[in-house]
């Protein structure tokens, strides 16, 4: 689409044809990158020029205006299905005063975008959004001042509409693009540019529809899985049967004789086959399975002994929050409660197995990847392959939803390693279903031990929490040992866990007003590979904390809403809970005994979105089992950028958490992981999903808060609380599948 604001065509062709200006002008790479489908057709490797980020403090790193009359937003964060592309474009268009239809966005690309680390922790809108918003405001400020000088008019007398600057007296007008005349916005983001008053927002706060959903609905190529480059070949990796398996023997010759097979890559116990066609690679993989002989080291402890071993074999405890004399404080309380909660290993279980494409050409590596962090991936590939980061470009493309650290980085490492042994041609690697299920790093099993005291009025006097957990982050932040491929080489890279992350105690500290809180973390190196799964430790911690709150409310004989409000002094938390109480029509709930209700609340990370939820469970007419009927949630994410996007994310989080909570636990035995497909690791399907309802408390004057993980923990506790109310007993262990239809 050509904007009426674009410079005239002769100017454009001049810019296009002038070498020097081309490098100085961002016309080609940006117009080129506007369409993902163009990239997916393979064009990006055609040598078009790409301009690197000049650092996070420069406007050009976030906002570019091209010669076609368009605006390109750049973000180091990835689109993972959260809808951040649309939300970030809204924020930029708002501050720049341009229409959405001339705005495009480029996500994570080490050749173009700023280094924003990982797309994680619900931080995109809070961080990338804030940077883009400031840069857009600065760009507008700069251009309005340029026009002001040009016309000798005060900036107050100028207004902007869809990128057209006009003087109020009607004498002058010029578009951003004409004004810039091919120049970059290389100025610093000084922070001096005023941000718009939220009451003047016309785009932020609107449920602008995600255009990428239109593309997907029409089957347009969109995912990294759909990337097709000229002469591309296909590879599959044969993983060992279990983490500790040793390769004893491999019949290489007969594999090489199979149709289409181009090469076998074997280094230690890393085995990959390259073939012309995808199906040929898959057939060769099937053959390899029988051609390889392994010796397997048994996994230990066995699943039945996991939690007792976890308590016995944890590392020396780490004090997270300290309250002296906590035992005395709780011990002196009129009422005391103690409970232990268990959460199993659970998986990301992405719908599409991880996929990446890599090309090694003239000593340089390009990787098209669904990673959550192109820069950390690049530095880790540099460590892995022993080449300089400047010789590696990681281009982020959408993958199947990952919900944390799934196989995306590992498959990128696989592709890079295989491509190096097969230079000159792009190599596409996609994991098989069992690779994703058995090799992704799971959300860690956790044991949570809580103890608290209540005073006579129902106020909590003291809180004592013990957490037992494996790490919740083993993302590859520069150390090759975090890649499966690197650990499997003849000369393996050692896995250096780099300390246990704070993810384990995320949300373990109650937001409630409790005078004494004591929290102790017991790190445990468990049998399975673990890393960040949506919410990290918050899922287990909130499940325990909010189950425990329900038990405390019962002990105090106070309504669960009232009990929480009584123990809170955070006004936004209280409002979320009160709003939920009226939205779910609590006072008129069914008290026949056939329906159970459970409430839970948390502010994610105690710093992001506030979320409260009620689960409604129905007793099945036959068989004494239950069905999750409905989830009603209320969320306060501060200033809401896109209400429909926020609802979509929250609904998704609610259903996903319901699936984890009711159905999911990774199974394994001595020989390895046994949850290898959707039958052995079932997740919730359409027939079982509850009705979901989400209400937003919009606070346009507050800063936007991360929302993508807010629902995970509270939904677990709400379901458990609802179930416990119907069972007349407490359930302490997830998943709940024995109780559900």
């Amino acid at each position: 689409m050509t904007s009426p604001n674009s410079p005239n065509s002769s100017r454009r062709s001049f810019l296009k044809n002038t070498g020097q200006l081309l490098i100085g002008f961002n016309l080609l790479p940006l117009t080129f990158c506007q369409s993902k489908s163009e990239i997916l057709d393979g064009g990006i490797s055609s040598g078009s020029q790409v301009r690197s980020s000049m650092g996070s403090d420069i406007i050009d790193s976030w906002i570019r205006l091209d010669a076609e009359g368009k605006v390109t937003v750049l973000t180091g964060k990835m689109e993972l299905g959260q809808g951040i592309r649309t939300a970030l474009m809204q924020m930029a268009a708002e501050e720049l005063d341009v229409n959405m239809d001339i705005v495009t966005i480029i996500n994570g690309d080490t050749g173009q975008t700023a280094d924003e680390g990982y797309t994680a922790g619900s931080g995109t809108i809070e961080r990338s959004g804030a940077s883009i918003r400031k840069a857009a405001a600065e760009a507008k400020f700069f251009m309005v001042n340029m026009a002001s000088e040009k016309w000798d008019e005060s900036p107050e007398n100028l207004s902007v509409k869809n990128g057209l600057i006009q003087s109020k007296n009607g004498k002058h007008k010029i578009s951003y693009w004409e004004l810039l005349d091919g120049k970059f916005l290389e100025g610093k983001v000084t922070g001096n540019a005023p941000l718009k008053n939220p009451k003047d927002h016309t785009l932020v706060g609107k449920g602008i529809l995600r255009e990428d959903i239109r593309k997907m609905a029409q089957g347009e190529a969109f995912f990294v899985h759909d990337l097709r480059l000229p002469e591309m070949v296909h590879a599959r990796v044969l993983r060992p049967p279990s983490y500790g398996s040793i390769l004893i023997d491999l019949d290489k010759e007969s594999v090489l004789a199979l149709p289409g097979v181009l090469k076998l890559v074997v280094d230690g116990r890393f085995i990959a086959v390259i073939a012309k066609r995808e199906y040929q690679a898959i057939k060769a993989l099937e053959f390899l399975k029988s051609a390889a002989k392994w010796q397997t080291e048994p996994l230990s402890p066995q699943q039945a002994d996991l939690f007792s071993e976890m308590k016995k074999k944890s590392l020396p405890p780490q004090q997270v929050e300290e309250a002296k004399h906590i035992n005395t404080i709780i011990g002196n309380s009129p009422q005391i409660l103690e409970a232990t909660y268990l959460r199993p290993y659970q998986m990301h279980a992405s719908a599409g197995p991880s996929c990446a494409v890599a090309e090694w050409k003239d000593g340089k590596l390009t990787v098209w990847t669904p990673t959550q962090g192109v820069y950390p991936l690049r530095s880790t590939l540099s460590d892995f392959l022993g080449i300089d980061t400047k010789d590696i470009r990681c281009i982020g493309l959408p993958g199947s939803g990952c919900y944390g650290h799934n196989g995306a980085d590992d498959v990128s490492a696989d592709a890079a390693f295989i491509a190096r042994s097969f230079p000159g041609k792009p190599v596409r690697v996609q994991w098989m279903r069992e690779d994703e299920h058995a090799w992704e790093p799971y959300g860690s099993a956790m044991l949570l031990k809580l103890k608290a005291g209540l005073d006579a009025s129902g106020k909590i006097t003291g809180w004592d929490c013990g957490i037992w957990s494996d790490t919740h982050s083993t993302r590859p932040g520069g150390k090759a040992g975090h890649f499966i491929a690197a650990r499997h080489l003849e000369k393996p890279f050692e896995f250096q866990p780099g300390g246990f992350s704070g993810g384990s105690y995320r949300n373990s500290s109650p937001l409630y007003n409790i005078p004494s809180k004591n929290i102790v973390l017991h790190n445990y190196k468990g049998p399975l590979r673990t890393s960040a799964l949506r919410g990290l430790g918050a899922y287990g911690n909130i499940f325990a904390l909010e189950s425990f709150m329900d038990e405390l409310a019962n002990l105090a004989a106070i309504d669960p809403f009232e009990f929480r409000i009584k123990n809170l002094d955070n006004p936004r938390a209280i409002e979320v809970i009160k709003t939920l109480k009226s939205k779910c029509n609590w006072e008129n709930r069914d008290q026949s005994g056939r329906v159970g209700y459970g409430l839970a609340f948390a502010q994610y990370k105690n710093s992001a979105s506030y979320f409260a939820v009620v689960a409604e469970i129905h007793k099945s007419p036959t068989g004494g089992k239950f069905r999750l009927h409905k989830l009603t949630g209320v969320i306060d994410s501060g200033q809401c950028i896109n209400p429909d996007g926020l609802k979509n994310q929250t609904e998704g989080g609610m259903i996903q958490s319901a699936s984890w909570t009711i159905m999911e636990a990774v199974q394994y035995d001595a020989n390895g992981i046994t949850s290898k497909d959707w039958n052995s690791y079932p997740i919730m399907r359409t027939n079982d999903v509850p009705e979901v309802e989400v209400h937003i408390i919009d606070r346009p004057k507050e800063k936007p808060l991360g929302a993508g993980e807010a629902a995970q923990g509270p939904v677990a506790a709400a379901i458990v609380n609802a179930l416990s109310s119907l069972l007349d007993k407490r359930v302490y262990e997830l998943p709940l599948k024995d109780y559900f239809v």
Partner: protein
Amino acid sequence: MIEKIKLLINDKKREFEVDLEEPLLYILREDANLYGPKYGCGMGQCGACMVLVDGRAQPSCLLTCGNLHEAKIKTIEGLAKNGNPHPLQEAFFEVQAAQCGYCLNGMLISAVSLLEENPSPSISEIKEALNRVLCRCGTHSRFIKAVQLASEKSQNA
């Protein structure tokens, strides 16, 4: 065994020389450049690879080419008529029925198959029709809404 097979894909006659054991999914993605159907499990458990075979939704990862000679295949790319998107494609966009979108193909193809047979399905019929397709983002409630919307619109048209 490599042989020539004829297929009618999105109303166009196509010929492929293929291993007769090769599932349709790979022919579509690699030879016909149709990327809508996705690999999800290769075992017919997840439905990411759904296509319409003679009007009925089927997982293409299990359909070996040897059994498909002269079959009539429709993929998500072939649903538009005279350049206008299928009403279900419109409805999926309108309801914003996707998060990551990987399962969208399977959901949409299953919905097309359902509405062909049953233009005004109940909610439980919609749920049953979409139950074969696995969604990990938790977008189910929107898929159901999108099918209802498309069904209502076609009733009122």
